[in-house]
């Protein structure tokens, strides 16, 4: 076995070992709700990845620490593998209920409940749901989420909550030893800033912040009127900017302005980078306006909301400004934070309103947060970099200039590197959006318009989860595969997946 394969195999194994605990722990939820028939499926869903991981770790125990190429391959294959094994609870519980072994006492489901759970007997639907969960997308293969067993509602929520912070961050927090290549892996998972010099301390602090905010969000939503179970699930998926719901019609089910406004701070917390949360919790509140990205999170949420509300009022979608603000504001924050909670039928809104939401979904919120999209810092780098280049034409060639970004002063070489990185990601983002839209246009029913298709694919690749109604269990397998790919590349910001696929296909590096 080559060193590269051994390194990738060993770290994938460690990831699967940690992952195996998640379905196993979820068995507690099945017991609490009296869904005893689901327990064997969950234990098996935990045991399989654990044993596979254990085998890989043993076989590749002497592999060297990962380099940059390995880091990207581990991140790309790791996320896909986790989604693959994350499918098991859906698949095994659906088959348990279908086969109904007498000793397990599985329920005899009828109507929509039967069709909702029955959809997961198809492994592709389970993989879709799992990938959607772990990438924090929130698009679903279910007809009626409220008809799912509680433990599967929980598994969907849990997958988004874990995925929001990151599978590698989870593994590093639990298993990593200082100096074991954790930094390479951490950076491969679309993260760059560290809170502490040590990556292990950084990820533990990320979990500390995430847990504290989760408890806080649960209390806020419960106080706004959500039942406790719903508050727990929506707090976890809202903070992770995932967007899975336990109700049939997402947040629209409650038809409550209080709940919708209570979700704003939850989604906004998820949109701010963890290092900024850390500084604010240390007492440095100036970062709300001093940090470039955080300032722009609030600024762009406000600007987008105003624009969308104006469109909704002008188009007569809603009667008054209050209703337009309630639905338009919620949907814009939900879109740009990449959460995907839905309180209104956005597929029926005007093309301009849908494209405004699509723009928010493509940009996303702060890098280093749980949000998806291209990220605000890249957009700002592109905008400021373009202006810098244009202004440079008016200076003499000998002029010494400095590019300022987020309080940093960069040399020409450093500025070029930042600009190039942002331009490459933005280009690839647009390219894969266009490719996805092209495939989708060929396979969706003709009743869906171009803006519907652009909206849906932007939502998928931005890991948002808002839907115009295209996504569902009846969608063609080609469309499902396209969405799976777009969710995957979107979560890892494309490049690690392309590097991993190249390494796999060329065998050059393996």
């Amino acid at each position, binding site marked *: 076995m080559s060193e590269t394969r051994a390194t990738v195999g060993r770290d994938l194994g460690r990831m699967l070992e940690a992952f195996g605990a998640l379905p196993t722990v979820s068995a507690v939820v099945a017991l609490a709700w009296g869904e005893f028939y689901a327990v064997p499926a969950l234990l098996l869903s935990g045991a399989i990845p654990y044993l596979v991981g254990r085998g890989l770790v043993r076989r590749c125990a002497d592999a060297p620490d990962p380099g940059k190429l390995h880091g990207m391959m581990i991140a790309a294959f790791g996320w896909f593998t986790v989604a693959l094994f994350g499918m098991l609870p859906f698949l095994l519980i659906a088959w348990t209920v279908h086969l109904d072994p007498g000793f397990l006492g599985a329920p005899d489901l009828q109507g929509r409940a039967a069709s909702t759970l029955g959809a997961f007997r198809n492994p592709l639907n389970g993989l879709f749901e799992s990938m959607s969960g772990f990438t924090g997308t929130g698009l679903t293969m279910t007809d009626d989420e409220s008809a799912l067993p509680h433990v599967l509602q929980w598994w969907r929520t849990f997958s988004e909550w874990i995925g929001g912070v990151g599978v590698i961050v989870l593994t590093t*927090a639990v298993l990593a030893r200082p100096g074991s290549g954790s930094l390479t892996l951490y950076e491969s998972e679309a993260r760059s800033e560290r809170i502490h010099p040590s990556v292990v301390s950084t990820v533990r*602090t990320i979990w500390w912040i995430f847990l*504290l905010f989760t*408890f806080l969000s649960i209390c806020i939503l*419960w106080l706004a009127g959500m039942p406790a179970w719903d508050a727990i699930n929506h707090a976890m998926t809202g903070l992770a900017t995932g967007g899975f719901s336990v109700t049939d019609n997402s947040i629209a089910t409650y038809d409550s302005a209080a709940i919708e406004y209570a979700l704003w701070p939850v989604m906004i917390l998820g949109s701010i980078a963890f290092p900024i949360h850390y500084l604010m919790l*240390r*007492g440095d509140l100036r970062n709300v306006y001093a940090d470039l990205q955080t300032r722009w999170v609030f600024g762009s949420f406000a600007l987008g909301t105003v624009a969308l509300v104006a469109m909704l009022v002008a188009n007569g979608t809603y009667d008054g400004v209050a209703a337009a603000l309630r639905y338009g504001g919620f949907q814009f924050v939900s879109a740009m934070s990449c959460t995907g909670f839905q309180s209104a039928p956005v597929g029926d809104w005007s093309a301009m309103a849908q494209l405004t939401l699509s723009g928010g979904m493509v940009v996303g919120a702060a890098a280093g947060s749980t949000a998806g999209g291209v990220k605000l810092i890249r957009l700002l780098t592109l905008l400021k970099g373009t202006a810098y280049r244009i202004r440079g034409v008016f200076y003499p060639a000998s002029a010494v200039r400095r590019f300022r970004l987020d309080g940093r002063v960069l040399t020409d070489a450093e500025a070029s590197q930042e600009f190039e990185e942002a331009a490459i990601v933005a280009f690839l983002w647009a390219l894969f959006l266009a490719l996805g839209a092209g495939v989708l246009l060929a396979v969706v029913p003709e009743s869906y318009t171009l803006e519907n298709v652009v909206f849906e694919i932007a939502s998928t690749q931005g890991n948002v989860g808002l839907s115009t109604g295209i996504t569902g269990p009846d969608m063609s397998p080609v469309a499902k595969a396209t969405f799976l790919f777009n969710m995957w590349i979107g979560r890892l910001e494309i490049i690690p997946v392309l590097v991993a696929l190249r390494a796999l296909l060329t065998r050059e590096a393996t």
Partner: protein
Amino acid sequence: MLDRVPIVGDLLDAGADDRVFDALLAAGPVVVAALALLGRGIVTTALAAGYVAVFALYAVAKGVGLVDYRRQ
């Protein structure tokens, strides 16, 4: 005492190095369990509201320098 529990101890050792936030984190599961098990009532409403209020007021007080954030 919680500092000695595996994983929990590591977690409390991380974070903003602040006793109040650490206490809120440690109390979180208890508060959520109370909301889930006891249902909506005066006590649970006060508990949830208190949790949110302590966090918000303390974060602001710390931000404006009314309290010293360093753990003793």
